[in-house]
């Protein structure tokens, strides 16, 4: 067992973990952060994506011990004072989810995408989230959501707004 100290969604934790424990299993099983989910065992699906010191990572590719001393943000930590993150709001408004299982990872990856590219085109969003699989939506509404959130988060184009109008 190795002791690690991490901050997760603003709270500090010190825990003993096995060296082989993956970050996602630490989050789910030791901290009860079950909003982050496991969708595969080959790091293909991205359902477990969280932010590690502000960068999106697939938490199944990170050992818990590697997160020692780090700040982890999960889907459960991005809304503030009851206000949804613009990306959460956009996924809701654009119907960017159906079963919702990929959604936590998709939202966390998309936030990171928009941080790097504040005004992504449709193709840039498609390329940017290709590490996250969704089986329900066909991705089109996820792309609309990411573009709308990008607009709200400060970059932005009118295209997402037009898409919303076209849908209603």
């Amino acid at each position, binding site marked *: 067992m190795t002791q690690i100290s991490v901050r997760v969604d603003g709270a500090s934790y010190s825990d003993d973990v096995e060296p082989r424990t993956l970050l996602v299993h630490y989050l789910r099983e030791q901290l009860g952060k*079950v909003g982050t989910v496991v969708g595969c065992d080959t790091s293909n699906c991205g359902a477990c994506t969280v932010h590690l010191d502000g960068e999106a990572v697939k938490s199944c590719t990170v050992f818990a011990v590697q997160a020692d001393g780090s700040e982890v943000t999960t889907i*459960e930590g991005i809304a503030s004072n009851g206000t949804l993150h613009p990306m959460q709001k956009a996924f809701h408004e654009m119907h960017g*989810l159906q079963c919702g299982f990929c959604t936590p990872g998709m939202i966390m990856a998309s936030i990171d995408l928009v941080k790097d590219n504040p005004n992504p085109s449709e193709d840039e969003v498609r390329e940017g989230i290709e590490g996250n699989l969704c*089986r329900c939506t066909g*991705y089109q509404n996820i792309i609309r959501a990411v573009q709308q959130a990008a607009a709200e988060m400060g970059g932005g184009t009118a295209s997402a707004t037009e898409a919303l109008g076209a849908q209603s």
Partner: protein
Amino acid sequence: MTILEEPTTGAPQKEIGKARRRKEDARLITGRTTWTDNMVLPGMLHLAVVRSPVAHAKITGVDLAAAQQAPGVIAVFSGRDFAEEQGSIPCAWPVTPDMVNPGHPSIAVDEVNHVGEAVAVIVARSKTAAQDAVELVDIDYDLLPVVLDMEQAVGQDAPLCHDHVDSNESFNFVFDAGDMGTGGDTDQAFADAEVVVSRRFVQQRLIPAFMEPRSVVVQPQGDNYTMWASTQIPHILRVMLAMITGVPEHKLRVIAPDVGGGFGGKLQVTPEEVITLLVARRLGKPVKWTETRSESLMSAHHGRDQIQYIDIAADRQGNVKGLRCRILSDMGAYLRLVSPGIPILGAFMYVGIYKFPAYRFECRGIFTNKTPTDAYRGAGRPEATFAVERIMDELAVELGMDPLELRRKNWIKAEEFPFTTAAGLEYDSGDYDGATRQALELIGYDELRAEQQRRRESGDPVQLGIGFSTFTEMCGLAPSRVLGSLSYGAGGWENAAIRMLPTGKIEVVTGSTPHGQGHETAWSQLVADSLGVPFEDIEVLHGDTAISTRGMDTYGSRSLVVGGAAVMKAADKVIAKARKVASHLLEASEDDLDFSAGKFSVRGTPGAGVTIQEIALATFAAHNLPDGVEPSIDAEATFDPVNFSFPHGTHICAMDVDTETGLVKIRKYACVDDVGVVVNPLIVEGQVHGGLAQGIAQALYEEAVYDADGNLTTGTFVDYLVPSAADLPHFDTGNTVHPAPGNPIGAKGVGEAGCIASTPAVVNAALDAVRHLGVSDIRMPLTPERVWRAIQHGGDGGVRATAGTTAYGGAQTETTAGVPTDASSLGGDR
């Protein structure tokens, strides 16, 4: 209780038709979900399943000792330990009276029949302890010959998949329109035909690949058991588990909490659900099993996997005269819940939207040493639609006709509905020409054809093709009488209840169990309009057999069409009961009451009125009810449709094909679907998008591949190519509306439309791009290698590349090495 006099306002906006954002989203976008794997119970034990590494063998020895002594392990069981109580996984659909069902133990006892079959189960204090012990289980296998190829499996002297049955054939189902009186003599139609075109199509094996891996938790409480399961069918699962295990039905509660997708893949009674219940009963402890993705891909049921021999007869003017379909359908190693019924659902859809005067369908269900097949989005209907939409294109080529012109010449005209087809189904409503005209406009057809001509003339190495699919499907599964006539083991009704709470809030209970379809939102819209109450005042309950006591669950595009209709019927009953109370409170005859926008008022007496929510409180208090009226306006209803509903649509794909590299890329995709009345356009559009993605994935990306020893070589998401956002095009969607006459909503169903329609449109488009190069078929999925080989060497591009080549989307692994590319008899065009 006060009867309020409210100022008359304008009629509230109708909820049906409104793009309501979903109620479900609040928990899903914040991570406050209740996936089964989230469940933690005091003292809970964890299971890990030991799976067969070989496809076909006798079990000659089982040594559990080392695993039993591993740290944290509580118990280890083999099939022998449960042989007396595990029964057989049920098959609810004996499609012929003499169908052979070899039986399907949840844990193999004497013999294994596919790689991934459960052979033992570890019970441990933690999941990691259980998984660590898996490889300590020592099982001796005496290998048997492996049956993998259907055409070989039905040949002379083929080895047997199950040595206790006579052959590898489970059933031979025949539908002959001439015999049934729904059409003419098919053989005569072919004998008389001026033109006959025959093709062999391969529907490759697919994996549903829902995103949430399967998971099940069982908690024993005295002689009661509660099961949480990632399932589409908690109600059916409960009945079946009771029948299999002997746990009395009333002692078993099944809950489907948040369920992360299904697509038919969770329409099952799985060995793991049975095993988890048996272990919990044996040990008296709560237990959990959650699969890994690799386990899921190899052991959860697969879909499709048919070989279709299709013959079409016509005259030289392009009037179709007959259709003959002979199908080999791979059941895999065992029959699961509705395995045999999947190709039979397709039997009635091969004629598509066309007026075939003669039709014959034969389907043989074949056992192979592979994972069992069962429902996957569309379930039989994608296969049928693919066959007819592909063969219509082939006939058009043979006749030198425009493929759309040939379709138009033969499809059912708008004024001919209702129309009974040669397959005996009565299509309800639609306008195929209207949808087609709209789709042509949406995609910019004339300009695309002009561009195609320019690029063909200039010898552009990247050629453009345009493909059509003008499809229909049968939805709203299903009229119980029809299911009975097809020997299905249950009915197709759906149940709903409405509970009027004292504060005016409303609980709607549905037997249709969602896993991403948005029932909570859509059902709220239905009830808001029916009862004239605010959308926000309604909560929809589902997925728990103790709450939603009767149900048939979610599959076959049935939820809104059948389950929503039950909700509407329940609402009518609530209104009827409330009317008696209103009559009493308003001191007016029931006949003089109008009910509008949630309020009863007395005709001719402006101002006097009482809302249905006020009546709920008055009924709760029960101080002042009419004599003989029970203090409840709650109601329950069950809806059993008389007929299926028949959504239709026109899908058009424009495809760039690089003739030098074989790379295909969808340039544009447009579709116009008629799914009847749309309750929520946002949800409908989302369903179409998701269906398109899966249908396109069959055409271009996905294939479950087995090597010569029966190992699944696409056993991870590295190898099984579920498309990402970068792999899919933008979709342009539209709709026409012809209400379904068979249900009070007028909805036809949308869950499977995109998946059923898109596959042939994509393949037809690719062929249209390269047909002038002598290509007449390309095997799905259309990998660049197959497309390139079809262009270079003719044929259909052959089997998927394995040894010595690099398969697109596939990895070379040890298990695929050494398998020659042309070894399979599936290769080659006919």
